[in-house]
């Protein structure tokens, strides 16, 4: 059993005679508790009481405004390999107040489905393409799992992958060659049997630059997939990748039927997708609904649900209203509605980690923050907790070392040390002192550019307020994504909001944000798209001829690249700790928090637990959702 509590919250989990105390960000392994007692505290409210294993409060000690109920989530023991146990936790960080994962939630998938009905889910964006090979929209990546299968599948807790279309674990021939056996009992929605040819075709299609897939960069490690038997695929890798399994479990490696896809062509396939998943596309009303019906011939059995219906509702609060009135079964919950949702007896609220990194990017090349001391001054200027609350309230947690807390937890990075060293207490006097050292004083203008959105303008507004308090004239400009990217490309910003989504691997943050793009294969010319190396840290140092910094930066670039092509975890750990220590004193970013998203599920949905990895939660080997009206 794993238990972890977010910040400010303490609790006791009870299992038989044994009881376990837990403190913030602490994890305990042990049997599934029969009940848990949690003392919950946030800035605003405190509720203490005794909770059952499903998270229902049956004896509140104190009830104040705010939380009266805590959702405990449980995942089944067993499928978790010991090696990955450590990574288990990062998902639970997000779920509910005290996340207890146990498998008792999911019903046996072999049990014949007695629940039925259509599961209606609100989502805010239109599907631009149903072709997973071309898709890059987050929500459809989740939904695509219902239509398509992949060789592997993430476990609901994110602890690792299990074979899905693959018949057993991948067989490692050498460092860059893997062989996968494919199940022979899988057929596509059009009746064709799924074979190794389809698998090889699908993987190679995304890899082929001619197809212009936006997901190409995610499968660059792959050289070629080769069908070496009717039900056997051999993967030849360009280089060893720590991310291979994750990628093969994701929708960048979704398996499509070769014949049908070739015959239809990409454009038509994007409208009439054919997969092998537990549901198939029945209808798509543009910008309105996406309807999926159960696939009776699914290789894991027939789903209990008749179908899934995604309702595209642009305004999250409207989606929530529909959830609250029972018109739909699942919807996002905005930060402001979190308390409301948690107080609603008909709604279970789940907080899921977004695995992202949110904060501000500082322009290290030009403008007031080209001087390292000015950037350091910012660390004294702000109160990180205020920024976090201003951005997302309770829907997020602080992060350190420029990666999400989930990653830090999974890897056991020395976040405490980083916090102590590089995240000082707010001290306006010291901030002003540093601004003066940097030759700025307080008589300068700062333009904070912000992407549109509550979380981005929220944090920008709080930051603006901090500047105002020390007498620095700061303005906020909310800009479109296009303008924002322009600003990044041209270095035309002082401070801008920045967020980077990744997965639970540090590579997703350090390689993508902190490498020196100049050293990429072939490099990138200065004036072209894609030039968004973080805050022009390298360019700034080069322009000022700051030898000391350059030396550090060269090393930084070297190790984030090396860490990527190493599979040894210990080695990678060392690389990233060193990278963080090189990076942090340069203060290229103001890293504030990792966001969580809250989703509300109507209580008439049974045996359903959303997971941040979003893989067929409504029907997979762990759980099978039903609607009890």
């Amino acid at each position, binding site marked *: 059993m794993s238990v972890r509590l977010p910040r400010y919250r303490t609790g006791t989990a009870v299992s038989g005679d044994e009881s376990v105390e837990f403190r913030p960000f602490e994890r305990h392994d042990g049997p599934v508790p029969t009940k848990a007692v949690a003392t919950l505290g946030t800035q605003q409210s405190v509720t203490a009481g005794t909770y059952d294993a499903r998270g229902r409060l049956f004896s509140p000690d104190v009830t104040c405004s705010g939380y009266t109920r805590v959702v405990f989530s449980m995942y089944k023991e067993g499928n978790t390999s010991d090696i990955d146990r450590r990574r288990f936790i990062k998902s639970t960080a997000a779920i509910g107040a005290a996340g207890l994962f146990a498998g008792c939630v999911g019903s046996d998938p072999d049990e014949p489905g007695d629940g039925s009905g259509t599961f209606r889910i*609100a989502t805010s964006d*239109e599907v*631009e*393409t149903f072709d997973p090979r*071309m898709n*890059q929209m987050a929500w459809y990546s989740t939904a695509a799992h219902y239509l398509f299968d992949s060789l592997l599948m993430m476990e609901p807790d994110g602890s690792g992958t299990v074979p899905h279309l693959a018949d057993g674990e991948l067989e490692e021939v050498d460092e860059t060659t893997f062989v996968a056996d494919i199940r022979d009992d899988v057929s596509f929605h059009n009746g064709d049997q799924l074979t190794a040819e389809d698998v090889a075709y699908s993987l190679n299609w995304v890899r082929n*630059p001619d197809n*212009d897939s*936006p997901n*190409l*960069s995610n499968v660059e490690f792959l050289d070629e997939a080769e069908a070496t038997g009717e039900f056997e695929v051999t993967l030849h890798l360009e280089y060893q990748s720590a991310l291979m399994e994750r990628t093969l479990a994701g929708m960048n490696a979704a398996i499509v039927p070769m014949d049908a896809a070739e015959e239809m062509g*990409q*454009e038509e396939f*994007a*409208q009439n997708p054919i997969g092998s998943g537990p549901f198939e596309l029945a209808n798509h*009303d*543009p*910008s*309105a*609904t996406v309807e999926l019906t159960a696939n009776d011939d699914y290789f894991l059995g027939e789903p209990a649900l008749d179908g899934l219906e995604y*309702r*595209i*509702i*642009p*305004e999250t609060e*409207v*989606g929530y*209203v*529909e959830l*609250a*009135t029972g*018109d739909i079964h699942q919807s996002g919950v905005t930060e402001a509605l979190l308390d409301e949702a948690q107080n609603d007896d008909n709604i279970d609220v789940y907080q899921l980690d977004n695995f992202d990194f949110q904060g501000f990017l500082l322009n290290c090349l030009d403008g007031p923050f080209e001087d390292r001391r000015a950037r350091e001054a910012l660390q004294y200027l702000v109160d990180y907790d205020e920024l976090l609350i201003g951005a997302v309230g309770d829907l997020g947690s602080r992060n350190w070392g420029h990666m999400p807390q989930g990653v830090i937890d999974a890897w056991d990075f020395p976040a405490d040390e980083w916090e102590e060293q590089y995240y000082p207490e707010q001290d306006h006097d010291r901030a002003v002192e540093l601004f003066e050292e940097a030759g700025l004083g307080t008589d300068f203008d700062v333009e904070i550019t912000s992407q549109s959105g509550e979380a981005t303008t929220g944090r920008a507004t709080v930051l603006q307020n901090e500047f105002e308090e020390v007498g620095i004239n700061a303005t906020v400009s909310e*800009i*479109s*994504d*296009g*303008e*924002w*990217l*322009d600003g*990044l*490309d041209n270095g035309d910003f002082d401070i801008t909001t920045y967020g*980077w989504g990744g997965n639970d691997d540090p590579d997703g943050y350090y390689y*993508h944000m902190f490498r020196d793009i100049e050293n990429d294969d*072939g490099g*990138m*010319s200065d004036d*072209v*798209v*894609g030039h*968004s190396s973080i805050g022009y840290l390298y360019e700034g140092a080069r322009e000022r001829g700051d030898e000391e910094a350059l030396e550090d930066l060269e090393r930084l670039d070297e190790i984030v690249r090396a860490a990527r092509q190493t599979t040894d975890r210990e080695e990678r750990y060392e690389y990233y700790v060193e990278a963080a220590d090189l990076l942090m004193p340069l203060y290229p970013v103001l890293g504030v928090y990792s966001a969580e998203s809250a989703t509300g599920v109507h209580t008439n949905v049974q045996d359903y637990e959303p997971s941040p990895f979003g893989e067929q939660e409504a029907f997979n080997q762990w759980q099978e959702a039903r609607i009890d009206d």
Partner: protein
Amino acid sequence: MGLLRYALRRFVQIIPVLFGIVTLMFVMMHALPGDPVRLYLGTEPGQELADDLIESYGFDRPLHEQYFDYLVRLGQGDLGQSFVYNRPVSDLIWERMEPTLVVMGLSYLVALPMAIGLGIYGAARHNEAGDHASRFAGLAGISTPNFWLALMLIYVVTYHLELLPASGYTSPFIDPIESLTLLIMPVITLATAQTALLMRMTRSSMIEELRADYIETARAYGIPERKVLIRHSFRNALLPLVTIVGLQVSTLLGGSVIVEEIFAIPGLGRLFFDSLIDQDYSVAVGVTLFFSTLFLIGVVLTDIAYAYIDPRIKYD
């Protein structure tokens, strides 16, 4: 015959205006900051991929070439290809046209009779309590921001009273009952301001008409007051009203952006909004062009109706 030729001539006259709109939109869309390719590919695209895309969409060619190319294709009825959806813009517009037109049509259907009824009532009871009340209601109607009204409706009607669903769209041609429940709130949102505006218009032109000499004639010849109001005054008061109804197409289409966004209606307003955010040039231009064409057609129909109602208009 004359009317037909008149109509034809009016329709031909909108072509230069449309041409102007196309040009304006083309310039404006290219003046938008940001690069659609960049936006499509995210913060870190491969250069090769980006170049490919830029080339395949012709974004690397000089602007005037792109413009002429666009005009030529437009002449062939081709609105271009959506960058985001990788589909023809005309398909996207076609798919999303119905909800917008249905909501707009219903808004007129609700607004017009109410506005006319209340307007005539107000004019007939000029300066009496009933008139003051309807005048105040009219003022309140045009003073209420529609998005605020929409939110309040959702808050009260859906969330607290649980009477109507707050989002979605079903075609009235498929399921009229469900469609109606879904359309009530969006239509109220759009129709409130319309009703108020048209009512004010009806009222003031009725008041003006009721002062006309021929109304005095009708009264002096013993025509019953109801007939004076409905037949004699209203037919004339209809003229300015018809003009406004035509011009209001524009306001309703603008309002559709907001209403469709809030009530999750899959129409053109939302398509426009999304395309603007995604910088999907050709879609944004296409929808704007469609809106403008609709508006211009509305104006021409207005003119024709005007000519039909008012025998004094000579259509030559």
